[in-house]
């Protein structure tokens, strides 16, 4: 990037800028964003479940899916396993392209775009909520649970 090197231009602009506030963004905006953030329905779990189900439906391993979609395997693993992970825009674009779904909605699902569509948000939330398992615990899981409860209850 080559910047203007004209000293007269600089002096002229500095003189005109003198005494001006130049801030962009600000108090009103920040407060509004905070308020919106507290009301935002979390969409990310729906994105994670969608990617996982779409992959499994095609009987693809994580590695095979990453290769077909042309995304980094590490990123795909993070998407499916790290709840707080924010995927790259390019990755979401590639996934949308591969799965033939609208990019904009998938970006919203991935938490990279805010969408003012309560119906879409609620439907996504319901979809994500259905991923919560309800099967009975296996013997091993039951034993693990007892162990951690015991640990938590120890004085």
């Amino acid at each position: 990037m080559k910047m203007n090197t004209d000293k007269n231009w600089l002096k002229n602009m500095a003189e005109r800028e003198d005494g001006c506030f130049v801030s962009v963004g600000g108090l009103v905006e920040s407060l509004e964003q905070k308020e919106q953030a507290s009301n935002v329905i979390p969409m990310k779990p729906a994105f994670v479940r969608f990617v996982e189900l779409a992959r499994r439906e095609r009987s693809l391993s994580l590695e095979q899916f990453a290769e077909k979609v042309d995304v980094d395997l590490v990123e795909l693993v993070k998407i499916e396993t790290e709840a707080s992970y924010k995927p790259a825009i390019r990755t979401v674009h590639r996934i949308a392209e591969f799965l033939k779904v609208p990019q904009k909605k998938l970006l919203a699902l991935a938490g990279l775009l805010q969408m003012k569509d309560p119906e879409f948000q609620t439907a996504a939330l319901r979809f994500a909520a259905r991923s919560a398992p309800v099967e009975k615990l296996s013997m091993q899981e039951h034993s693990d649970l007892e162990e951690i409860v015991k640990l938590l209850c120890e004085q």
Partner: protein
Amino acid sequence: MRTSVLLLHRASGEPVEGELFDEVTVEHFLEAQREWRPIVLDAAKRLVEAGAAKEEIPRHWHWDWSSKESDLRVLAYGFVGIAYEGRLQGLMKLETAGRSGRIAAQKGKPLVYVDYLETAPWNIKQIASVLGAKPKFGAIGTRLIEAAVRRSLEEGFKGRLGLHSLSSSERFYLDVCGMTAVGKDPAKQSLLWCEFTPEQAEKFLAGGTA
């Protein structure tokens, strides 16, 4: 990208060489938070106590650049900083995807959006004077907007630029930069949407505004 940029040293009235860069890291955010915020907050308090007019009181006292750390990984965002002798003088966040013009003739055409822009408080006349000092460097805001326009050119957006100006900053964007006031945006707390057409951006770069 790192490039030299001339800034106006207020005390001597002469240009000095600073550095403009886009490799902004979380360290820069923390620096802004640590060094700028207490000064802005102090100045805002003193101005309120002194009964200063609303337009004279900095409205960005609460900003938290460090909260923008996660944005560093988003490809559609770009950051630009200006430093002099290693000390941060200005910081800006840009969005380079998903934004388009609102002026009738530019409708739907892509532009670079300035999401946040701030200069170090010691470069703002009102803040420096309330703290008994003179501003250190001039034209930091101009340089950041120049960088945003050049980024727009690099992206193939022909210099088109858009931003939501705080009411206290409107004079700078309209009168000094020569942007068009498109209208208050109800979707953005009624802040004024300001926009550069390619022609206005070119004029700004050439110094023929106002």
